[in-house]
Structure formats: structure tokens, C-alpha cells
């Protein structure tokens, strides 16, 4: 049955699901997009790929790898972190705007999303954007759909900008014991002209980490330059297994088998040390040069109360359903933003069918 017909026939709320790997729960029944699968267009010479929403991310990554290209926003795999199973789909990645460590250099999922096709709450098929890299024709509903967690419509097709896969990758690690010192070092690296594509701090490892990607000679040159420029902060040495290192940061592997709630906080990098101090976390992981703080805290902790006013937002990624129910998954918005969001949802989904409660 066509997705649009299914939605048009709905009278009760549904939970929209891609691969079910992101830990979203909510009403039954589930409306799955798994049946909408397959790459519909891939032009390596134009750096564009169009796929149906239910296409597994692994299928897309394999097709891109065959042409030495990739999804530059580095979608994370949270299955181990959240204890979920199933296959992550591209529609799910887009709906949650999932971006990895390369976000700071290349951009977020929303920055690579060129077009969408979705079914709104009336069962109408809507398209916005397209498959070209520059498009300002009408309002950018593409960005609005990215990160809307299915609450505005059910994605059926997405088109993405893709990028060449770098020929070489190298990682520098520097021993650091303080969050503030780590962020200063990462910031110095990100202020350099050497195109750092990952900047993280793992307190448990006691290492601040930098990633450099590109052609082999260029990577070697930039590694050398960074080691020199950062010598005031300490000694930076190359680390083995760069891919594994960054996959663990991307997927927050550090928290996988540890008890507690997981929060994800986006903030101004130079505020990271203050944010980290207020969290009373059992464990921390910093990415995006300090602008992304992952925190493992005691179950049920109200992190937003501890943070108070700050430049950014805190998302509850992993907790018991009751905790998510009580605290809310997403940072509550101040007025009039909350009304704008609510009114937009009402326009797109007048019957309140899609993932009610997920975005407040």
C-alpha cells in the first residue's frame, strides 16, 4: 500500500520508525518506512545521491565506498550505546539530524540534505528542495524536516550531497587532564589553517585527539605543522588505528556498557569546562572541539536543572521511559519559539498523528 494512502487513512497516532535504532518509543502502532528501500540515483561526478527513506545506511555507505566517496557528516551508530538492534536507515538519520565528529568541519546532516519527499499529516506527498547543490527556490523545508524526528511528516525519499573519501587519515593525541586545557588546545588547532576534521577529548583516556584527512602528503605535512604549533600545550603524537579511534568517539563507545543516563549537550566550546563542571557526571566525552559534551550521569538526574541558563541545549539520549517522560527528550524552548514550533507542527500534522510527545 502506498505510504500516502496509509497516512490518509490514519485516525490514531503512530510511531514512525526507520530502523528503530535511535531509542525512540511512543504510541503503537508503528509506521515503518523499511519497505521504502533502495538508492534511486547516484551520480558520483555530481556528488549526489538520492535514496528512499528506508534504505539502510550500510547500503548507501557501501555504494559510496565503491566510488571512493562518503557521507561526510559521518552518521553515528548508536545501537551499542542504546542497546537497540536493527538496521539504521537514511530516513532515520535525516529525521534525527545525526552528525558525527566531522560536523565541525564538513557540516551536519542538515547541511548535506539537498531535498526531501515526505507525506504530511493529511496524506499529501510534498517535495521540497531537489537534487542540486544550490537551491533557494522557495522556503527551505528541507532543513525543517532534518531533525524534526518525524513530527512534521513521514520522509519517503531524501537526496544528499556526498563527498570524496579522503585518501589518508591520521590522528594526533595529546595527554591532557583538564577539560579547560583540552578545549584550549583543540580550539588552537581549529583556529589553524590545517583543516582539522575531528577534535575530541576523552577524559578517561586522558587524551585530546585531533584528526587530519586528505591526500597522504598533505596529511603528513599538516600533522607536522600542528605538532609544532601546538607544542606550547604539550606533545602531540600520532595514534595508531585512526578509524577505530574516531568510530568510538562518533558512537560514544565509552558509555556503551556503563549504567546511567546519557545526555548530549551542544554548547559554545569555551563554555564546555563550566558545563562539564555543573553536570556532576560519572563520565564525559567531548567532541566538536568541546562544543558537544556527552555525559553519563546517575539515572534520573535532571541535567537541565543543574545546567541552568547556558548557550546551547541538552538532549536526553538514553534513560528509562519514565525519566524521558518526566524530563523530556529535548530542551524545552522559550516563548515565542515554543509556539512557533507548536503551530508549525499543527500546520504540517493537523491531526497530531506523528510521534506525539516526541518533540514536546
Amino acid at each position, binding site marked *: 500500500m502506498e505510504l500516502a494512502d496509509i497516512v490518509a487513512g490514519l485516525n490514531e497516532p503512530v510511531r514512525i520508525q526507520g530502523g528503530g535504532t535511535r531509542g525512540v518509543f511512543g504510541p503503537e502502532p508503528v509506521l515503518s518506512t523499511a519497505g521504502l528501500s533502495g538508492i534511486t540515483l547516484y551520480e558520483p561526478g555530481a556528488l549526489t545521491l538520492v535514496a528512499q527513506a528506508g534504505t539502510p545506511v550500510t547500503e548507501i555507505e557501501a555504494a559510496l565506498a565503491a566510488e571512493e566517496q562518503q557521507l561526510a557528516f559521518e552518521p553515528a551508530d548508536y545501537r551499542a550505546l542504546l542497546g537497540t538492534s536493527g538496521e539504521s536507515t537514511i530516513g532515520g538519520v535525516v529525521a534525527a539530524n545525526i552528525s558525527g565528529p566531522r560536523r565541525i568541519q564538513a557540516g551536519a546532516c542538515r547541511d548535506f540534505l539537498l531535498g526531501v519527499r515526505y507525506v504530511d499529516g493529511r496524506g499529501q506527498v510534498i517535495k521540497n528542495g531537489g537534487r542540486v547543490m544550490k537551491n533557494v*527556490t*522557495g522556503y527551505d523545508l528541507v532543513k525543517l524536516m*532534518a531533525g524534526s524526528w518525524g513530527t512534521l511528516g513521514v520522509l519517503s525519499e531524501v537526496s544528499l550531497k556526498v563527498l570524496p573519501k579522503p585518501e589518508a587519515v591520521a590522528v594526533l593525541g595529546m595527554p591532557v587532564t583538564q577539560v579547560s586545557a583540552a578545549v584550549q588546545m583543540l580550539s588552537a588547532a581549529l583556529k589553524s589553517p590545517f583543516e582539522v576534521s575531528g577534535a575530541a577529548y576523552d577524559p578517561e583516556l586522558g587524551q585530546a585527539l585531533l584528526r587530519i584527512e586528505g591526500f597522504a602528503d598533505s596529511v603528513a605535512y599538516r600533522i607536522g605543522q600542528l605538532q609544532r604549533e601546538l607544542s606550547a600545550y604539550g606533545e602531540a603524537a600520532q595514534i595508531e588505528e585512526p578509524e577505530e579511534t574516531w568510530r568510538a568517539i562518533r558512537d560514544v563507545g565509552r558509555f556503551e556498557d556503563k549504567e546511567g543516563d546519557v545526555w548530549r549537550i*551542544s554548547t559554545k566550546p569555551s563554555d564546555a569546562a563550566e558545563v562539564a563542571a555543573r553536570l556532576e557526571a560519572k563520565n564525559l566525552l567531548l567532541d566538536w572541539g568541546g562544543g558537544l559534551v556527552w555525559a553519563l550521569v546517575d539515572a534520573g538526574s535532571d541535567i537541565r536543572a543543574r545546567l541552568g541558563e547556558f548557550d546551547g541545549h541538552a538532549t536526553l539520549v538514553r534513560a528509562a521511559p519514565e525519566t524521558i517522560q518526566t524530563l523530556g527528550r529535548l530542551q524545552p524552548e522559550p516563548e515565542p519559539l515554543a509556539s512557533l514550533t507548536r503551530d508549525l507542527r499543527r500546520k504540517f500534522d493537523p491531526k497530531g498523528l506523528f510521534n506525539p510527545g516526541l518533540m514536546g
Partner: protein
Amino acid sequence: MEMPQPNPDVLARKHRVLARLQQVLPEDAVIHDPAETRAYECDALTAYRCPPMLAVLPSTTQEVSDVLRICHEEGVPVVPRGAGTSLAGGALPTADCVILGVARMNDVLETDYDNRFIRVQTGRTNLSVTGAVEEEDFFYAPDPSSQLACAIAGNIAMNSGGAHCLKYGVTTNNLLGVKMVMMDGRVVEIGGAHLDSGGLDLLGVICGSEGQLGVVTEATLRILRKPEGARPVLMGFDDNEVAGQCVSDIIKSGILPVAIEFMDTLCIKACENFAHAGYPDCTALLIVEVEGSEAEIDDQLSKIIEIAKRHNPVELRESQSAEESAKIWLGRKSAFGAMGQLNDYMCLDGTIPVSSLPEVLRRIGELSEDYGLPVGNVFHAGDGNMHPLILFDANKPGDLEKCEAFGADILKLCVDVGGCLTGEHGVGIEKRDLMSHQYTPADLEAQMAVKDVFDPQWLLNPAKVFPLDVSEARRVAQMAAE
């Protein structure tokens, strides 16, 4: 191009509206003398002109809020204006509107290199944002050709691009936050120095909404460290198709140049006369620029030149000095001005899949013959963002209409091959009535629903973006409500 009739009730209230605006703004910030409001009668789409009822030039967000609150209460349409460089008529007034110009709001509010952002008032020009961070070797990446004059406010409204966005993205990819005044005068802050939204991406939909959702008064922009160096290479080909194939091969090779620009014969000649950049005499010219250290540049350019050689170029020349590079870019960025010396022109910016370049260029050539109007092509080839410049004579009766019909055919062609009407200039009034060629009624309804939420009375920048017949019910409702 049709514009709606001015609302006589609004015109009748002119004096009351003027008096109220004068109460909240300094005397020199309210322009009401018809001799002076005429200065705001058009933007860079000069074929269409209409003096506004009034114009205001506030200096603070509070003043913008006061103006909008009053206009909201009085039911007066407001047309926001940056520097008035829109090629799409984005700032074209209606006779019953108040022009809200942000030109006096041009301060830098905060510069933060550790967190790599700058916060500015939006009347500031694009180039002077880079100017404010240049001494620390930083820059603001989006670089529209009008960057010397155009304001950040307009860049945000149109989601402007530029030659170097193949690598750095367009405005929306470099905008971190805004302070915006809604039509009813409420001030909202969205985003900031942190990345991404915790809720719906309202910033994403505001950017590119052509001043129809609110007036952005402050912007937090991402700034980047300048690369160590940059160098362009010129490649001449005697065939458009071959040049297009070369672009595709470069992209496929894994190198991501910071810019790949294309010019055809007519543009090459006009730009060469203007800038003396040493452009070769050929059918299709590519300017490909890469960045990095000297050694990195050498390495990338040698790979690119190797690819180009497989396509039998008639010219292949690396820039030898910073002066030569500057001349090469001056020529490219002066293309519109240089073409303007030949005749009046209309500039389009439809975007197409890169693979369709040869076909689209061939069809544009055929249409040029059919219409009897010459067309020059200069565009961002790396991302398929075309810029056909149709030459016509504004003083020759019928020429403008013929030019517009030709332009519409080109844009429909762009849509039909899988592209879009506009890649970086915006819809404005220029492409408004072609929107139905790209979008279904339901698609347009979904976009208009967003405006319904932000500006329920449809007072902000009316009669733009959406075809007049499509938006009519909403605009009529606004008039009837008064």
C-alpha cells in the same frame, strides 16, 4: 510582471502611520518626501520600479520592533531591505508599503576567534564581515559577486552563495544564529554560538525565506581561518561538452577544488576587456582554484592538470603570482558589470545537475537563436549553478518581454532536467510565477503554511516568492481583515 493593486485604505492612513513612526524613530530615520522615497523604488532588478509609501532606517533592534509593531497594528505591508542588490526584485516595494532598510545597523557586536564566530548587525556588508576578522587571518566564507555592497541581511534572506561555496557552503551552512523581529514586533533569538538546534530547525527555514518570516537584525556567523594559500588554473576548451566532462572528472577524482567557474566566449571577451586577466580566446573557459600550502597546491593542481590534459585543452595555465590570481578573479567577479557594458541584460541563476551541463548549454544556444537575443554564460560549474546573461535593449519596445519569455524558457529547462529555478539569487518577483513549474499546489501550500505561522496577516514582503494567484486568497484575507 504584475504587482497587486495598492490597498487604498492603507494609502489613506499614510499620515497617521507616518506620525506614529516619527514618534518612535529619530527624524532623519523616517523618509516620506516622494522625492526621497524614490531612492527605494527598486533594487538591482531595475526593470521594475515602484516608490514605497514610506521608508524607515532604524538603528536598533528595538526601533525595528517598534516599526513592525506599528505597521502590524495599522495593517501596513513592510518590505525589508538590505543593500538593495537583489537581482530578483526581493526588495521591490509596493506602493502601499513601508520600506524597512537595515543599512544603519552595521556594527560588529562580538568577535570570538576561540569559538570561531562573529556576531554582527545585519546591515553590515558581506565583505566588511571578512574585513573585521582579516587581521587575525580569518574570513567569512560566502562570497556573492556583489559582496562589496550586499548586506548580511539580504544574504540571509536569499541564502546567498558565491564562487567559493563548492567547498565552504552557502549562507545557511555558515549561519549559526539570528536575532529576528517578527511582524507583530516580538523579538526572537534562534541559535547562537553552539551548533545545531535542540528542536525544529527554525534557523534553517528562516534563512532563504526572502524576508517574509521576520526581519533579522543580528546574525551569528561562522568564521574560518584563511588557508595558507590559494591558486587558480585557467583551462580553455573548444567545446562546452568537453569542458563539462572535465568538471565531472575533476570532481570524481577525489579532489574538491574550492571553486570551479565556467565562462563562454561572449563572457570571456567581455570580462577580458574589463579586467585584462589574460583569458584565452576559446569556447569554454574553466577557472579551477585549490587551496593549501604551496606544496599541497602544487600537488592538487598537478592532478587536476593531468585530468584536463585528457580533454585536449586549447589552453592550460597556472597563475604565477598573487597579482595574476587577483586579476583572474576580478575578471570573473566583474562578469555582470562587464556584460552590462555590452547592453542591458537579465541574469538568471537556475541550477542543474552537473551531468546535464552540455545538454542545457546546447538548448540555451538554440533558444538564443529562436529569440534572436544573445546570451552569455558564466557560472559556478562545480555545483551546476548557471548564470545565463540574456542581452537585450530596454529602450527597444518588446525586447524586455521577449527577454523575460526567453528567461522563463531557460528556467523551465533547468527544472525539467532535474534542477531548480534559482540557486542563490532567490525567487523575488522575478521567478515568482514560475514556481508552479517546479512545485505542485500541495508543495507550495506547505511552504505558505510556514508563512501563515510567522506572519499570519501576510504583511511582510508581500507578493513575492509565491505566484500571485496562489497567494491571492491569503493576501485578500489580510485586506478584508482591516
